[in-house]
């Protein structure tokens, strides 16, 4: 699949900063189209993007790599977004990290669960363009 710092399909219109200055984002998303899209957008915007396709892979990456912010889908295989959130919040090393729930699920119960666990934002994907998501991420990674 994709490389961690994949530059996406299109030619980026911006210059990419040097690796050490780049903010590191972990994108946990199981839909390949959306994964590709957000990956490309954030890479174009100069972020270093790590991707995970399910909750377990996401957890593994969180433990192995240094990450500044997590974009978390909720309906993901192996370990659900809610369960992954629980694990993150239980881990003293990770619990302060900004987390943006990026999901298309707006089931009242799940939404309450996720919010109760303490995410910084709960975004419905279809309500935002990738650029708008980037704007929101910038609030947490200035």
């Amino acid at each position: 699949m994709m490389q961690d710092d994949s530059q996406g399909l299109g030619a980026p219109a911006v210059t990419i900063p040097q690796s050490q200055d780049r903010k590191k984002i972990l994108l946990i998303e199981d839909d390949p189209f959306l994964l590709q899209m957000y990956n490309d957008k954030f890479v174009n915007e100069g972020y270093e993007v790590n991707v995970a396709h399910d909750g377990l892979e996401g957890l593994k990456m969180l433990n192995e790599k240094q990450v500044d912010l997590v974009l978390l889908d909720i309906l993901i295989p192996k370990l659900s977004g809610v369960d992954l959130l629980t694990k993150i919040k239980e881990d003293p090393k990770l619990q302060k990290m900004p987390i943006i729930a990026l999901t298309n699920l707006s089931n009242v119960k799940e939404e309450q669960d996720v919010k109760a666990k303490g995410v910084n934002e709960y975004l419905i994907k279809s309500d935002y363009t990738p650029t708008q998501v980037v704007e929101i991420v910038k609030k947490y990674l200035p």
Partner: protein
Amino acid sequence: MNTNIFVQIVLVSINAFGLVLAWWILRGGNSKQLKLWFSLMTIFILLWANFSYFGSTARSVSTGLLFYRLNWAAVSLFLPSFFYFFVIYFLLKSHLASKIGIIIFILSIIFFILSLFTGLIIKDVVQQSWGMGIVFGPLSDYFNIFSAIVAIIVITYSVQSYKSLSKEMKVKLNYFLAGIFVFITANLVFNVGLQVIFQSVRFQIYGDFSAIFFLVFTAYAIVKYELFDIKIIATEGLTAVLWIVLLAKTFVSESPVQLLINILIFLLTVIFGVLLIKSVTREVKQRQLLEELNKKLKELDKQKDEFVSMAAHELRSPLTAIKGYVSMIMEGDTGDIPEKARQYLADSMAVTDRLVRLVNNMLNVSRIEEGRIVYQMEETHLIRAVQEVYYSYRIEAERKGIEIVMNIPNGLDDVVYVDPDRIREVIGNIVSNAVKFTEKGKIEISIGNPRKGVVRVDVSDTGPGITEEEQKKLFVKFYRAESTAGKTFGTGLGLYITKLLIDNFGGVIGVESQIDKGTTFWFELPVRKQV
């Protein structure tokens, strides 16, 4: 003699009541064994009470002795065996019955035989001033001790298993224990206490009668939790009592004419009663059916919610990808694109956004209606929400050749207490309608303070206008204006949701329109903070 009449009335009532009770239980309950044991227990309680009465009122010593012995035989079978098995085995569903039960059963058979055929329990009877009294045999105390032990086992076991019981069973057991309490108290008072004080069994009959309380409580517990319906039971009970009274009346008729009239009345009551019971039964059955259907509907509603929620999720994912990629191309992530392509992409964006709104509306309508939505209430700058909506519709409006302007008075920046996402949805719904229905001319979004403490947003268009008739129905669910627009759009949910949301935020929404001139939608919200 007065007491005797009183006792007779009580006895007849207990008989009628007990039989009716046993009959109901036999007809209705679910568990065949429970019904059988309850009925047996009832019959033995009735025998006990009746034999006791016949014994005490017997004219000769031999009849008195016979009835008292029958009385005690019935008790020795009833109390230790039926009572024990009924409670332990059928009420508590315990296997304790198999172990101790056999011993209790054998002992009660022994006491039964001893009471009936020997003088060891009841030695003799003697004529007293109040009636026939008992002279107890040497083993009668052992029977009392045996009965007490059984009662203690039953109560201890009931109390012990109380905690582990289901809520429903607890209530059932509560009734049962209440019945037992009255029964045992009465027995202690009349059969033991008064017997010791007055050295006479003349009060024993009242203690025996108290068994009816136990029956009533137990029957009620069974009735309530074994799918009986109290309404049917009450009707049947009253009807049965009426029948018994009227039937008894025919037997004491004083003349043939009166007999004829009484029989006629009785027959009419029977017919009327049967019809009454049938109609009540039908009504109750229908109610049960409705309750069942209601339960199914609730289940279906839950399934529907889950389905809608999942369907929305599945619809949103491809929409997100379309919207995302189109926006990225438009924003230059793939490099420069021709102006014509940009216009086409702007159109795709607009229709994709329409689809996104449609999905959101479908998802939200039932939640807002049922108050299940969770609002993220915040102090929100209303003009910011207006501006955001304005910018997101400007392209679409200009593509249609409509001028779209925003009028914000200098210095106005009122803060309202709303859910910012939802208020954008409100303004978006109104502006999107204006863009949709206006073919030429101008859309004007204005914001102002009509009076102190209130902020108002007006969205005016130069569209076809809405008739007064239709204006009234605009905010109704699924209503879509068509007469003036000439065409219909959407699901008819947008304005309905908009109104629900504004209502929720403590505001007012309205419309003013003139045919061929245009329409103005407006809403007002209370100001939280003036900036």
